[in-house]
């Protein structure tokens, strides 16, 4: 197990290296540079001074080596669009915001989604099943911005319970959390329902019933544990996605999070910021997937994790 994890961590760094290299060259292959964010063309001299200051006038490969060298010393550099702000500082500032929102949304979405899914499966083709399906379809066919806008209007204007936008108190997180989780509740519920139905047809459920396992324990120990695996598969990337945040939700609720920052870095061609955030996100994502793989092994002992495989 330990060997397996060590090996995976090793591969993780290799993967990260490839991601960084590819991202570096892809963002340079795309038209535009940090000065594009100015929304106007600047005099030539301004551009020259700017490129010189940030070393953008050097050959691309030299820039790449310099970046990798700094990265090796754990220096992600400075933002090219937000002068004076280091990339690391930005990540440190914005990711906890997205993380808090994301964790709340995943917990909320996962628990309600999985409960709904189980409910729907056991009440298959009865009204709870239809209600869950209706919500699932609603959750996916209605774009996130609509849910968010409606929640905002009804709970901050019609019934002024909560702050409309911003960040700082628990109250600020409530509406975005619901809006963020809305779509995923549907996904969790549907996947869980399908899995539970699958598991219910398995022989070992019959064995458990023949043992006289009470309904509750049957669902909890025998059904859920076996049905939850594929849901964990979708949970993994979601957990990583937590930190990258949601552009739309963060915009509507004006949340100073990672998602909005990431998209604007890309639009502004803030090279160092894009790279830094991509590295951060990739590292988290890969780690989350590793955790999921390990979780897999814990939930399903048939999938053994060993260094050999």
């Amino acid at each position, binding site marked *: 197990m330990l060997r397996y994890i060590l090996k995976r961590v090793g591969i993780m760094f290799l993967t990260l290296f490839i991601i960084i290299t590819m991202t570096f060259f892809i963002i340079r292959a795309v038209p*535009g540079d940090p000065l594009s964010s100015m*929304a106007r063309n600047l005099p030539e001299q301004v551009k020259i*001074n700017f490129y010189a*200051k940030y070393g953008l006038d050097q050959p691309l490969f030299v820039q790449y080596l310099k970046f990798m060298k700094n990265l090796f010393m754990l220096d992600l550099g400075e933002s090219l669009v937000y002068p*004076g702000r280091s990339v690391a500082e930005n990540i440190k500032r914005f990711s906890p915001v997205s993380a808090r929102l994301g964790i709340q949304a995943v917990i909320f979405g996962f628990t309600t989604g999985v409960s709904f899914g189980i409910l729907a499966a056991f009440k298959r083709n009865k009204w709870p099943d239809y209600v869950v399906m209706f919500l699932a379809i609603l959750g996916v066919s209605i774009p996130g911005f609509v849910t968010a806008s409606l929640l905002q209007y009804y709970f*901050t204007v019609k019934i002024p319970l*909560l702050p*409309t936008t911003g*960040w700082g108190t628990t109250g600020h997180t409530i509406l975005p959390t619901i809006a963020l989780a809305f779509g995923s509740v549907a996904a969790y519920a549907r996947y869980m329902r399908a899995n539970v139905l699958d598991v219910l047809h398995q022989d070992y459920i019959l064995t458990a019933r023949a043992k006289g396992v009470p309904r509750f324990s049957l669902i909890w120990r025998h059904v859920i544990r076996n049905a939850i695996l594929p849901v964990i598969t979708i949970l993994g990337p979601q957990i990583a996605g937590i930190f990258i945040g949601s552009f739309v939700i963060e915009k*509507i609720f004006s949340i100073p999070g990672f998602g909005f920052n990431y998209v604007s870095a890309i639009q502004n061609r803030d090279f160092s910021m894009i790279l830094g955030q991509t590295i951060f996100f990739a590292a988290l994502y890969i780690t989350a997937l590793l955790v999921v793989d390990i979780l897999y092994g814990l939930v399903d002992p048939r999938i053994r994790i060993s260094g050999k495989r």
Partner: protein
Amino acid sequence: MERFKKLVTLGISIAVLFLFGACGGEKSGVETDKNEVNTYLGSGIKTLDISKATDANASFIFTQVMEGLTRVSVDERGQDIILPGLAESWETSEDGLVWTFYLRDSKWWDGSELTAEDFVYSIKRTLDPATASQYAFILSPIKNAMEYNSGKAKADDVGVAALDEKTLQFTLKSPTGYFLDLTYYKTLHPQRRDVVEKYGDRYGATMESLIANGPFVVKEWIPNNKVTLVKNENYWDKDNVRIDQVNVQVVQDTNAQMNMLLNGQLDIAGVSKQEWVKKFEETGRFNVVKGYTAGSNYTFFNLDDGIFKNDKIRKAFSLSITREDMGDVIFKGIFESAYGWVPPKIQIAGKEFRSEVPEPLKQLKDESPDPRELLAEGLRELGMDENPENLRVSYLNTGTNDWSRTFFEYIQQMWKKTLGVEIEGIFVEWPVFQKMIDEKDYQLAGMAWIGDYNDPSTFLDIWKSDAGIYNTGFKNDRYDELIEMAGVEVDQEKRLEYFREAENILLYEESAIAPSLYRKRNTFISKRLGGITIPLFGGMDYKTVYIVEDED
């Protein structure tokens, strides 16, 4: 099953409690009794380093926390006027090249004395190539400014000097008609050498590194979230500052801004949608201030294109823009039809340019009432098929939102109806747009231009053939000559004449660009606020704002 049902119910109720229960006791910021103003920015501030700041959000903050030599305000007629700021008075030499400003006694926020040297340092820092300021070009009227910025001259050669602690002198490259309009601009604000050097590259990026000399100081700055400004007790004119605090929230989404104006979390907001306007008017809680924003929307042609090299075709396209309808449909009746390039309220020689100079396209329209005929003529001249239905041209759009798509779909139908021409839309991201314009890989493209300072040159200079701003292929010797002459002329009346002729060439003779609308704004202000001024340049100034006492 019973137990299971209970568990599910319990789970859901815990989740709901977790979400709703936690918010007890927190206030949503609707406080009307305090001596505070709640306002917003549409996006986060990039930096508060005076030399490096480029965005309107930073400008807004600087307006409140900084003061330059002058301050801009609005007179009774709604025209911008320049009031003395840190400079009590100033004088100009005969040839208009030397400007001397006499500073009043004033202090920085931390109590230290503000001197002329702070201005000199600020300007030289902005021009220093190592600073890589993106707005250095604003200082180009100052002698040797651009030379220093490009490394061809030394810092000492730059035409700015502190004659003594309280006397600041500028030497200009050429007489610049609008120089006084730069003196309130953020790039000409003073900077403190000790603070800048203490924080180095991080100056302006963090709250601690900020230093103010204006009506307010920054009390709290949470990037991308909010800025809290409080009254500066060391401001020389603090007795005229009547509010204690300005709460600035970052609110990105327009609908959210509207919601907040409606529920009282904001005191002021720009409203650009008729439906919202109606809604706010119904509440009776707001005053409306309408005004221009010193900008024009326009379409420009690639003059090297096989079709648009013909001026008649350009004129046909320009004249067939249904400006009134467009302003109504796309810009919700707020923007105004533009038959000229320089928008209203831009001043020269103490007069409004637009009221002195009739709009050139109106004349063109009177002379050629049928744009279809012009198009046919143009096509004939080019030896092409005269039937407009066989003409297909492309329109380059930027913007990655729904609005740009709606806008394009409007003009596509518009030209189909008015000229019978098929327009194909190309949508690209802004940096790609810039690249395609630079490479002249377009036929028609749409843009807006917002002026930097209160002089027609901020609109007309950019079409000089060597300006290098937009690559349209427009080159007219007389135009270039006029712009150059206006740049060195001291006599404002003469400059007005030069600009009149230049605009006439640009629109009437050549139709190199096709302006469509003058940009305007519709600001809704809570009736509890008084003393609001929204100048054309420089943004809203809270120095003069006060809370109206309950009169009813």
